[in-house]
């Protein structure tokens, strides 16, 4: 190996020049995903804070008529008063109980009927026209009827919550079973699965993401059901609270009640996402269904 005396010098100069070029171009490295996540979280928090400030500003300086609007601080004060008096807890408990019973029944029966329709042609043919009819009907219009039949207590609310939320759950459970991959069903056949094994090991896991979507849609409809039913005729519940506050021009309490429903809805949907992640870890890398 023969190296000319000048070689190291030029080598060094060359690499320096290269380094200089590299620095000048300065390639933009892709940022790690956790950084992107942190930034979008920060933006979300800022957005919420900004929204609250705007609310406060509009309530204090733009819409000054206390009947038409209330600033955030007044709404929080109204909420504090309800909390201290114990009214918030008792009314929220009534609404929550109605929701849990109505939505719970809708979930169990909706999933069961959806599965039955998807696996039995006769059941599907029989129920299909009714499901289509009720799914497209504005079922909250039945509230006066239910109040006549079941009274102003919890029963009429549970009935309407059940009815408005069962159809999206049923239809998604049905679609979930139907969407099961033909190839996987053939695997079931090739490995001599019994009908029950096909159902348990292939159809149900395949339907799970669809069922979650159905539940999410059902939550939204069920919450609307609670509010409207309680507004229309009731003796307790957050909807009743909103209704009576509205009649006495207590705008802060009205807005606080609505805020409670929104927070409850968000918590339910987030809870559902959490459950989905816990029971379906294989979906952790897949995208969120909206």
């Amino acid at each position, binding site marked *: 190996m023969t190296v000319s005396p000048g070689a190291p010098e030029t080598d060094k100069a060359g690499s320096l020049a290269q380094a200089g070029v590299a620095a000048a171009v300065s390639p933009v490295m892709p940022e790690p995903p956790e950084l992107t996540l942190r930034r979008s979280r920060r933006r979300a928090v800022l957005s919420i804070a900004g929204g609250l400030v705007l609310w406060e500003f509009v309530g204090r300086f733009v819409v000054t008529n206390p009947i038409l609007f209330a600033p955030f601080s007044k709404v929080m004060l109204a909420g504090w008063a309800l909390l201290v008096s114990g009214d918030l807890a008792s009314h929220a408990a009534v609404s929550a109980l109605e929701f849990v019973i109505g939505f719970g029944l809708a979930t169990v029966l909706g999933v069961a009927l959806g599965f039955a329709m998807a696996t039995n042609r006769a059941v599907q043919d029989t129920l299909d026209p009714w499901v289509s009819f009720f799914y497209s009907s504005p079922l909250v219009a039945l509230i006066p009827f239910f109040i006549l039949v079941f009274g102003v207590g919890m029963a009429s609310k549970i009935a309407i919550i059940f009815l408005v939320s069962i159809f999206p759950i049923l239809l998604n459970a049905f679609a979930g079973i139907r969407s099961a991959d033909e190839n996987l069903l053939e*695997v079931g056949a090739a490995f001599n699965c019994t009908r029950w094994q096909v159902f348990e090991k292939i159809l149900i896991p395949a339907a799970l993401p669809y069922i979650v979507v159905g539940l999410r849609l059902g939550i939204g409809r069920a919450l609307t059901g609670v509010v409207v039913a309680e507004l229309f005729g009731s003796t307790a519940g957050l909807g009743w609270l909103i209704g009576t506050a509205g009649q006495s021009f207590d705008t802060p309490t009205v807005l606080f009640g609505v805020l409670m429903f929104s927070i409850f809805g968000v918590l339910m949907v987030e809870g559902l996402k959490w459950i989905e992640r816990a029971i379906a870890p294989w979906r952790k890398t897949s995208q969120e269904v909206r």
Partner: protein
Amino acid sequence: MTPAKLDVVGLSKYFAERGGGARKILDSITVSIADGEFVSIVGASGCGKTTFIRCIAGLLSAEEGEVRIDGNRVTRPGPERGFVFQSDSLMPWRTVMQNVLFGLEVRGRRLSETKPIGDKLLKLVGLAGFEHHYPNELSGGMRQRVNLARALAIEPQVLLMDEPFAALDAQTREIMQRELLKIWAAAGKTVLFITHQIDEAIYLSDRVLVFSRQPGRIAADIRIPFARPRDLALKRSPEFLKYVDEVWKLIEDDVISAMAQKRSDNQQEPG
């Protein structure tokens, strides 16, 4: 002469046509496959090769003729036949290990006793260490390895493979062919392998059955004499190419008529 492991006698299959009537897909096919033999079926699309292997698996039932394993007639899927699907058909909600052990699980075997079988198979197909991965975390080649391990788990005597490498890229496919021969040599199974790639069929097999189309018939039964183990370089040897040429000549007309038919079908029903 070694006794036949798999016997197909006079097998015919019809498909119902729109507006009544039936079209013959397979025309009284008779073939015998010896224990431990590797047999491939090639043919133009529409020659009924996939229908044929599905009849043998018991996923379809034939109108005429029968399928026998060790002399016993079979009409439904059974544990003596393992099926490797064209699409990997893995359950996305099951880990690699759970997918491999699926066939044993549905037969009521406990995980504690099947786990060692799974470990052994994953090692055999080169996926040791991936048992807790989900299919969506694997490449196409890896998923087909799991597919193969799943079929082997029930300890079948006959392995039925329906174009298992069709969806893989050319390089992965070559590697998988070599791996399959290794696994076949280690496991000692009788294999029936469907493919539309002539070189793949010749490289892998002891015998290549060439199917003609409409209805499907065995046009030729060609013995492939190359010594084993076979190197991938064999595919570039002139002797090998002579066999490729021979098979190609047999199906060339079929391929052209299949293409022409597809074109006219497309003109009749756009989209």
